[in-house]
């Protein structure tokens, strides 16, 4: 008999808790030789803004110990091109699609939510609040509870789709942000986005990234991500989606035990593009062998 892997994230019903993280899975099609996107819980597409963005000059990526820094600069073709070019392709893939959105202002986020709201191919919206608020001198929305709450409200007011707020780890108290966005109506939170880091080429005395700083991802950040997921899951009532350095079934289980209802696979997709599909099977096998329900696992940490 089949094991039940289905999970509920707010109003969103997913086949299973294995999702892919924004910016690490393109728009799905790049991975179609390696994984059947329809088998995944959901795919979260690369962040979309209102207008096209060129992204940062290269070099944009550099490897660090156990991780990588990226400074892609949120390159994307803008929401209109996304709807024209990517949506038809995503329909073909039969994937549950969550669109990750980003903006410079509250109005941007609201406009994006409104524009995506009528599209049946979009199953949910994930809001990247790690972006700088241009009106507030570039302070990231995600670092101030009040700003995070305002973004959340703006998005919720403009869509009937489930809204996931993606939290930044570059804060003192991530639970305060999580509580603020829950209060503001978020259906779920996902965490963590990248830690801010930097690398220097000693020979040339230049930063290794043209943008100087970039986002750290990969196994190096897993302990920080797991801690934050645990802390947030303790205080919020909405589902928590765990992200950060996941590259094995064991990692998935750690996040579920810490309190995540679902997880997203990021950097590991680059190393093994078939990983997300393998993890769905791996999780199913684990539950069968241990005769255990998914719900029994979530938040089951013994302290």
């Amino acid at each position, binding site marked *: 008999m089949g094991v039940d892997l289905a999970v509920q994230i707010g109003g969103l019903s997913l086949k299973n808790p294995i999702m892919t993280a924004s910016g690490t899975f393109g728009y799905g099609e*790049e991975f179609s030789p390696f994984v059947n996107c329809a088998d995944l819980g959901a795919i979260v597409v690369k962040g979309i803004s209102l207008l096209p963005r*060129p*992204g940062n000059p290269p070099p*944009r990526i550099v490897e660090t110990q156990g991780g990588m820094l990226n400074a892609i600069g949120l390159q994307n073709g803008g929401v209109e091109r996304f709807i024209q070019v990517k949506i038809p392709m995503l329909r073909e893939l039969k994937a549950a699609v969550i669109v990750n959105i980003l903006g410079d202002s509250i109005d941007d986020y609201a406009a994006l939510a409104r524009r995506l709201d009528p599209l049946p191919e979009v199953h949910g919206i994930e809001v990247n609040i790690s972006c700088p608020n241009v009106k507030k001198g570039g302070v990231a929305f995600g670092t101030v509870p009040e700003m995070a709450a305002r973004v959340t409200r703006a998005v919720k007011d403009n869509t009937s789709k489930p809204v996931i707020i993606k939290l930044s780890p570059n804060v003192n108290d991530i639970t305060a942000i999580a509580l603020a966005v829950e209060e503001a109506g978020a259906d779920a939170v996902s965490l963590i986005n990248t830690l801010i880091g930097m690398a220097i080429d000693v020979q040339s005395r230049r930063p290794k990234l043209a943008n100087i700083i970039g986002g750290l991802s990969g196994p190096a950040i897993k302990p920080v991500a797991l801690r934050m997921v645990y802390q947030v899951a303790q205080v919020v009532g909405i589902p928590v989606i765990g992200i950060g350095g996941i590259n094995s079934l064991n990692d998935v289980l750690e996040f579920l035990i810490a309190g995540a209802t679902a997880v997203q696979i990021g950097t590991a997709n680059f190393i093994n*593009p078939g990983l997300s599909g393998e993890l769905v099977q791996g999780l199913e096998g684990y539950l069968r062998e241990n005769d255990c329900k998914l719900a029994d696992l979530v938040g089951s940490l013994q302290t």
Partner: protein
Amino acid sequence: MVALQYVETGCIQQNNQLNPDSFEMQIYAPQIAQRAEPGQFVMVSCSEVGRSPLLRRPLSIHDVHGDTLTLLYRVVGEGTAVMAAMGTGDPISLLGPLGQGFTIAETDHHCLVGGGIGIAPLLLLARKIAWTQPKAGITILAGARNRQELLALEKFAAMGTLHISTDDGSEGQHGFVTQLLGNMHDTALAVYTCGPTPMMQGVAKLCREHGWGCQVSLESHMACGIGACLGCAVARSGIHAGADKYVHVCKDGPVFNAEVIWA
């Protein structure tokens, strides 16, 4: 329309040291080998998933024989050092074949210009030209810093006319490989080049002056190799707005018409 790309665990058949820095690795990897086109590359895993080094390393497909493909690589850092330590019989995970390779021009004289390790992708190109256009002339211009760093010369010599230059004059013409190209006088030349950026820019400039078609094979730091991370951006020549300011080496390239990159 799913691209034919694979994650394949190949089996190392040979890993020979050619000079203090360079190695040639033959890998039994039928899925990738059978589909490889000249100028395409593979992403090589130099460790277990999640272990150090984390990311795969991009390497051109140097040659193919049946189910076996050959990589020609220079040890420059951690990943290539791990590869150098591998031996016959070891498994090695490859992702490929990746990218847009060379487009063989309709002409009767092809000129392949390689600098240093940049010679790597040109061998399979020469083979395919010889196979698809048996009557066309092939000239190979190979440059390196010194005699020791010249690689795969016999193989290239067997494919066409080979001219050599070294920066220190220890073999062939003393000077840069661009000078060898400057000596070419054919009007209908199709040029294909891979090597250090300044060299390729020099080649592209000469081609522009002579009206020769010029394809360049670029390098860029890569995380995914399949167009997903957008890490491998290189600015286009000319002014392009928004998301079109950059091309992506892994997906749009690594081979580009020179004018796409350098106006």
